[in-house]
C-alpha cells in the first residue's frame, strides 16, 4: 500500500479545522469521505485540495450515511480512512457506526459539534453529541472519543485518533466544538520523523476456516481485502472466524462483550486527562473548549486564596471513571462545566457522588463559552 502522507512542518497561525486536515494528511490517511455541513466543512474542503496531492483519494458522498459506509469500505480495502461531519451527520451515521464497531473497523470520525437538536444553529458550537457518539447506535459497545481544546490539539488529536483506530480496530471520534474548529491560533506541526504513527496489524495468510480474524480482546490482526485472504466480514452476530451465527447464545455474548472488553481492558493506555487539583477542595471538571475557561477561573480563584483545582478530560470515551473518582475522593466538591445542559454530568456524578458534593454549571447562555468570571462567581458561592 502506497501511503498518502505529507507533513506541513512548521509554525502556523491556523484555523482548528485546517489543523485537523493537516493532521489527517500527517497521519497517512488514504481515503476521506464527507458531505458539506457547518461548522465542519472546512476540514473536508481543505482535504479536497490537499489529499489528492498527498496520494490519497476522497469522495464527496450523497449523504453522511454514504460517507461513513464508504470510509468503512475503504478501511477494509486497507486504507486509513476518515470522515468528518457535525451533529446532524452523526445522527445519520449512527447505524453504520455500529457496523464499524461490530466489524472492528479502524476509522476516524471528526465531529465538529454545533447547537441542536434538529438543524439548530449551524454556526454555534456546542458539545451537543458527547453521548450520542458513544451510545447513539443501537446495542452495547465502546468507542474512543477525544476532546480537543485548541487548534493545536485539532492537529495532535487527529493524528492520535488515527493511531488509536489502527491499534484497536475501532472507530475513534474527535469531538471538536464549532468554536475550536473555527478558532485561529498558533499550531506547531513537528517534523515528519517526530510524528509517531501506528499501523494496523495485517493478517499475512492462513485459511479463513482456522483464522481468528475477530473478537480478540488483544485485538486480532485485520484480514484486509485484496490479498487473497477470502475474508468474511458481516454486520450480523459472528464468531471469531467472522462467520454469521444467529443461534448460539455463547457466540452472541462474545460478539457483544469482546469488542467492549477490547477497549475497556486497555483503558489505562487510552484514557488521558490533565489533573491539577492537589490540595484543592473544589475541582472543576471539564473537557473541550470549556477547559480553557475552567483553568482561568481556577487561577483567579486561587489568587483569592480559594483551594480550587481542575480536571480536564482529554478522553471522553472510554469514560475516565477512575480519574474522576480519584478527584472526587480528594475534594469536597466537584463542579462539572459543560457547554451543554449536562451530557457527561450523569456519568461524572455516578463516579463522584459517593465521595463529595457534585454540581453542574452550564454556560450563562447556551451556545456561549463560559465566562471565567461567571465560573468564579459560582466558585465563591459554593465555597463561602
Amino acid at each position, binding site marked *: 500500500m*502506497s501511503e*498518502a502522507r505529507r507533513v506541513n512542518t512548521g509554525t502556523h497561525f491556523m484555523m482548528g479545522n485546517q489543523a485537523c486536515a493537516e493532521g489527517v494528511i500527517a497521519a497517512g490517511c*488514504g*481515503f476521506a*469521505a464527507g458531505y458539506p455541513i457547518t461548522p465542519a466543512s472546512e476540514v473536508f474542503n481543505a482535504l479536497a485540495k490537499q*489529499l*489528492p*496531492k*498527498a*496520494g*490519497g*483519494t476522497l*469522495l464527496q*458522498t*450523497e*449523504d453522511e*450515511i*454514504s460517507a461513513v*459506509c*464508504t*470510509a*468503512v*469500505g*475503504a*478501511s*477494509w*480495502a*486497507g*486504507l486509513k*480512512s476518515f470522515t468528518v461531519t457535525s451533529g446532524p451527520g452523526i445522527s445519520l451515521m449512527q*447505524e*453504520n457506526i455500529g*457496523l464499524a464497531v461490530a466489524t472492528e473497523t479502524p476509522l476516524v470520525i471528526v465531529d465538529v459539534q454545533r447547537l441542536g437538536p434538529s438543524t439548530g444553529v449551524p454556526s454555534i458550537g456546542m458539545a451537543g453529541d458527547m453521548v450520542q457518539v458513544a451510545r447513539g447506535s443501537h446495542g452495547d459497545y465502546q468507542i474512543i472519543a477525544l476532546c480537543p481544546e485548541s487548534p493545536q490539539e485539532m492537529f495532535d488529536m487527529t493524528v492520535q485518533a488515527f493511531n488509536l483506530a489502527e491499534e484497536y480496530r475501532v472507530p475513534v471520534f474527535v469531538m471538536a466544538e464549532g468554536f475550536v474548529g473555527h478558532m485561529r491560533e498558533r499550531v506547531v506541526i513537528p517534523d515528519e520523523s517526530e510524528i509517531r504513527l501506528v499501523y494496523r496489524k495485517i493478517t499475512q495468510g492462513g485459511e*479463513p*476456516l482456522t483464522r481468528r480474524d475477530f473478537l480478540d480482546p488483544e485485538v486480532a490482526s485485520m484480514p484486509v*481485502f*485484496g490479498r*487473497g*485472504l*477470502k*475474508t*468474511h*466480514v*458481516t*454486520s*450480523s452476530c459472528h464468531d471469531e472466524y467472522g*462467520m*454469521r451465527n444467529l443461534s448460539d447464545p455463547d457466540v452472541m455474548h462474545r460478539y457483544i462483550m469482546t469488542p467492549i472488553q477490547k477497549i475497556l481492558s486497555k483503558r489505562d493506555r487510552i484514557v488521558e486527562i490533565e489533573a491539577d487539583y492537589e490540595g484543592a477542595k473544589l475541582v472543576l471538571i471539564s473537557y473541550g473548549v470549556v477547559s480553557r475557561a475552567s483553568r482561568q477561573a481556577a487561577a483567579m480563584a486561587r489568587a483569592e486564596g480559594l483551594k480550587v483545582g481542575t480536571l480536564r478530560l482529554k478522553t471522553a470515551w472510554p469514560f475516565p471513571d477512575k480519574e474522576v473518582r480519584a478527584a472526587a475522593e480528594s475534594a469536597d466538591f466537584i463542579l462539572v462545566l459543560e457547554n451543554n445542559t449536562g451530557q457527561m454530568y450523569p456519568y461524572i456524578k455516578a463516579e463522584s457522588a459517593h465521595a463529595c458534593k457534585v454540581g453542574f454549571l452550564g454556560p450563562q447562555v447556551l451556545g456561549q463559552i463560559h465566562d471565567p468570571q461567571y465560573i468564579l462567581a459560582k466558585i465563591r458561592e459554593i465555597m463561602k
Partner: protein
Amino acid sequence: MSEKTHPLRKYMRPQVKKTTFCPGCGAGIITQALLRAIDELGLTMDDFVFVSGIGCSAWIPSPLLNADTLHTTHGRPIAYASGVKMGLPDKHVVVVSGDGDLSAIGGNHLIHAARRNIDMTVILVNNGIYGMTGGQTAPTTPYGLTTITSPYGNAEQEFDISALVVAAGGSYVARWTTYHPRQMTKSIKKAIQKKGFAMIEAITQCPMQFGRVSKQGSAVNMLKNYKQNGIRIEKAAKMDPSELQGKIVEGVFVDCDKPELISSVAALQRRTGGKE
C-alpha cells in the same frame, strides 16, 4: 454415489454446505449465473470483492462465496462497495442485494453510484417483495397486489429500476428473469468487464412470500409466468404500451462507454503530483 463435486463448488466456502434459501427460490439460480460468469471469464475469486446488504438476496455472497465478502447494513452495500473500490481499484467489486435493499432504503446510493459511473457490478435481485421480513410491499411490488402491508391491494406504482439506472447514468444495464439464466450469465460477464457502473436487474421468484401473496404459488408456476410474459426489449420497442401490460421487458437497456470515476480520480492524482 459419485465422489465428484459440483463444478462450481470450488467457488464456495468449504464449510458452507447449503444455500440459505427456501426450496425453489430463484436466488440460487442467480448465484449460479454469477459463478458461471466468473468461471467463463477465467477469473478467480481473488479478483473479486463481494458486498451485500440485508435481505435474503444479500445472503447470496455471504457467506457462500469463497472470496473477500462484506455483508453490510440494509440499503448501504453500494456505499460500502464504493469505498472498497476506491481502495482496491484493480479488483472487481460486485454488489449483490435485494430490490428493497437497493431501490427503497438504498435508492439514493444506487442512483448516485450510477451517476458517478464508478466501476462496479450490481446484481439487483428483484423478487418484487420484502422476502426476509415476511412479504411486505416493496417499491417493486405490482400495483394492486395484496401483500401483508397492502392488505387491500397495493395503491402504489412500481419502480422500473432498470430505467431508473439508465437515466441516472449507468454504463451497462440489463434485465433478465430467472427463466433466462444463460442470458443472465452473458450479461453478468459483460457487466464485470464493463469499465463503469453496471447493473443486472435479476427478476426472480420468491415462492415463499411473493408466490404466496400473488397466489402464483410454486417456483415452477412463477417460472412459467416468466416464460409466458417475458418479452425482449427489441420486440417490446415495437409494441404499444397497452400491449405491454403484465409483460416483463428483458434484455440490454444500455451498453455504452463514458468516463469512469476511479480512472478520473487516478488521473487527477497524477495531475496534482499525488501519484506517478
